[in-house]
């Protein structure tokens, strides 16, 4: 198969010729090609990986996007789409011989229909801006990744972003009705529909979470939901992580789907408390946040039921937010967990595995063991309701060898996630970061099938090449480097 062509499309031109072509397509302020300015685009939220592109284009119109795609397609220049650059897996890492296609200036809300409960937006619109625009109608857009004040809808579509409320309200794939955009060759495409379904294959499902590798989206129609009348949150403390994990399972077994169900271990609690003073109990081994939303009657009923479960499961203390201010304070600590990690350590490395909830205790014990093995600390925050774990590995990039140890630590966590029946990425995407671990999660034929899906949308292979799906060659190399628990993955493959 055309593995090489898909991964390293070689441009048919030099950088100089390419930049000259782009100048004809864009006004001067729409093109960046000087090294000093390109630096701003050398990485996304995963700053451990950096690369300078040939150029960055900042189109203002769809016509410019089409012209750019057609030009890059003709000249076989890789295109890396980019939103706000808040991604955590290097999905928007530039290609060293490619164009970064920033969609940040396509930032208009095109339509908001309160009767149909839909908003149609350009990809550069920020996640939170939709809910702000919908608020006067009592509506909001449900997926709320922690970066929602900055991240764009285009980026959310590329990554299938989640948030703290997705157990009840779903991920991006459950909340986007239709996208319009262009293939790598610049042909217009529409995936999905404003009707409840669309004819043919579910291309929308493939496009969402495709990390900018299948198409460039220029218009997104999302579903808006009625804002729940009220929400209250329980803060519960446990003297062991295992007990907190059992309480999570017990809440679900009780038939309750909380609006949010989050866990933090002691390290994360202390770091967050020190930062935002949320009122967290510092002596607790684990803290749970359980949110209920809906009508006042509904919330009262659910809070009482959850409280009874927490009590039964041995919560050492639990309290319900008395008012909106306190509820937001409870959440402030959780939402600030990442920056809080940044305050207690020069650098941190955020992981994103998902595991079956029942494996939580085993995973956290294994992480504690890895902390000793690698000589690094790890704070654990966890979307407990849906099994999505965000261990934050603390390290100092200025200490020789620490980043390499953090990376190996992270790889161990991800590979354990797969062995426990989970996945290497719940919501941050594979990007460049977890590409080696894809070799552990998928077999060679499955990876081959992914390349065929990619080629079905982008036969020339110019959209974000080299991301998300590893080549078999790469997997063989990785397998040689990393014999996991005495078992060599891809043992049947020829070694290159």
């Amino acid at each position, binding site marked *: 198969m055309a593995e090489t062509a898909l991964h390293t499309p070689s441009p048919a031109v030099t950088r100089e010729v390419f930049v000259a072509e782009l100048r004809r397509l864009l006004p001067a302020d729409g093109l960046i090609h000087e090294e000093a300015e390109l630096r701003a685009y050398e990485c996304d939220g995963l700053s451990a990986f950096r690369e300078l592109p040939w150029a960055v284009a900042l189109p203002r119109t769809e016509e410019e996007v089409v012209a750019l795609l057609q030009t890059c397609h003709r000249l076989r220049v890789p295109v890396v789409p980019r939103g706000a650059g808040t991604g955590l897996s290097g999905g928007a890492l530039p290609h060293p011989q490619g164009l970064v296609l920033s969609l940040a200036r396509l930032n208009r809300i095109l339509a908001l229909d309160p009767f149909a409960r839909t908003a149609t937006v350009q990809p550069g619109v920020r996640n939170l801006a939709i809910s702000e625009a919908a608020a006067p109608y009592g509506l909001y857009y449900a997926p709320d990744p922690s970066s929602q004040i900055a991240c764009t809808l285009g980026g959310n579509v590329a990554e299938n972003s989640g948030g703290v409320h997705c157990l009840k309200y779903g991920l991006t794939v459950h909340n986007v009705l239709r996208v319009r955009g262009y293939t790598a060759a610049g042909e217009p495409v529409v*995936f999905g529909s404003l*009707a409840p*379904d669309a004819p043919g294959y579910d291309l929308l499902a493939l496009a969402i979470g495709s990390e900018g590798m299948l198409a460039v989206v220029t218009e997104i129609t999302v579903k808006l939901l009625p804002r729940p009348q009220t929400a209250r949150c329980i803060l519960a403390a446990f003297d062991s992580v295992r007990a907190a994990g059992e309480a999570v399972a017990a809440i679900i077994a009780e038939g309750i789907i909380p609006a949010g169900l989050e866990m933090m271990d002691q390290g994360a609690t202390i770091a967050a408390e020190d930062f935002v003073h949320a009122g967290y109990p510092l002596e607790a081994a684990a803290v749970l946040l359980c949110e209920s939303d809906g009508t006042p009657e509904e919330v009262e009923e659910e809070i009482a039921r959850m409280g009874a479960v927490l009590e039964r499961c041995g919560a050492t203390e639990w309290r319900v937010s008395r008012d909106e201010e306190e509820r937001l304070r409870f959440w402030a600590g959780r939402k600030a967990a990442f920056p809080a990690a940044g305050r207690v350590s020069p650098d941190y490395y955020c992981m994103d595995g998902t595991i079956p909830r029942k494996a939580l205790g085993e995973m956290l014990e294994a992480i504690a063991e890895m902390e000793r093995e690698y000589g690094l600390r790890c704070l654990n925050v966890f979307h407990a309701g849906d099994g999505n774990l965000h261990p934050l590995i603390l390290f100092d990039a200025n200490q020789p060898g620490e980043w390499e140890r953090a990376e190996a630590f992270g790889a161990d966590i991800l590979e354990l996630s797969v062995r426990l029946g989970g996945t290497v990425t719940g919501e941050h995407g594979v990007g460049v970061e977890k590409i080696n671990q894809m070799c552990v999660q998928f077999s060679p034929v499955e990876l081959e099938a992914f390349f065929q899906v990619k080629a079905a949308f982008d036969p020339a292979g110019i959209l974000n090449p080299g991301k998300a799906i590893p080549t078999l060659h790469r997997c063989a190399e990785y397998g040689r480097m990393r014999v996991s628990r005495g078992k060599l993955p891809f043992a049947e493959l020829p070694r290159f």
Partner: protein
Amino acid sequence: MNAIVDRLREQVLAACGRRRLEIRGGGSKSWYGAPDPDAEPLEVGLLSGIIRYEPSELVLTAYGGTPLREVEALLARHGQWLPFSPPHFADSATIGGAVAAGLSGPTRWGHGALRDYVLGVRVLDGQGRVLRFGGEVMKNVAGYDVARLFAGSLGTLGVILEVSLKVLPLPPATLTLRFACSQDEAIERLNRWAGQPLPLSASVWWQGEMTLRLAGARAAVEAAAARLGGEVLPEAAAQRFWEEVREQRLPVWNLHEGEVLWRLALPPTTPAWADAEDALVEWGGGLRWLRRPVGDDSWFERARAVGGHAVRWRGARAGERVFAPRGAAERAIEERLKAAFDPDGVFARRLPLE
């Protein structure tokens, strides 16, 4: 089970380049889509059984040939359900067939579609490859979402050997209300209510009557009922009614000779057509059913013009279009996807790529 999978693989490989196969679970939906009279059945009903189910994980994994009623009975024993209420159409319906058909029932309005609940699949494709996509966890963005691609692909890409679905607790309370109103009033009210925090679950308008199902916390259902008014249907009658809707047993679905049954998926706010007062309207206005004489092909264009699409659900004659056409670029992508999983075209094109 491995022996059954091996046998299926042999059958697929033996047929490659020689004949076409039509994947058959319980045969409950064999009338749906574009039939291929020359295809031979590939029976997958032996591939049956629940593989894993832990209620507190909210995930159920079963072999594709597992009877749907067995899955639903198991869930019910643990106070859970498939919130998209898939239609059975016959007792023999299988879970793999439900996923391949991609159809949802009346509660799709309030609780989401089948594709929203697909977490993972293990499939046998047209090259004899056994492939696993997605998994058994709620959040998973590793690789393209091929599991969801199989939902509604009508057996054109491969055999669904195993499927993992997200399941949910049954709502603690349900209540069905009935109102007398016109089709336009129903569409207007349902869309307005859908923009308010109400525990809406399912809706049907037919022959001047709007039936509304509420499902959720007891307090929320009671508060909504008090606010919305209407006549309360006794629970037994309500359950019977919703099952009749799910299984399409109301008279509107009884096809007479010389008629076609049209399924119209539309943006839910689309006003009622003056010449479609006889429609049955589901999903808050988003789904409408119509019986029309053979030869009236205008519905593909009329649905498209308002941003929806039409399906000739039952009554298509040989060679007639069943599904609405797609754009040129989308069609090319679909063709290449089909070729990726089934390069020899061994699986019948019940979902035509046209």
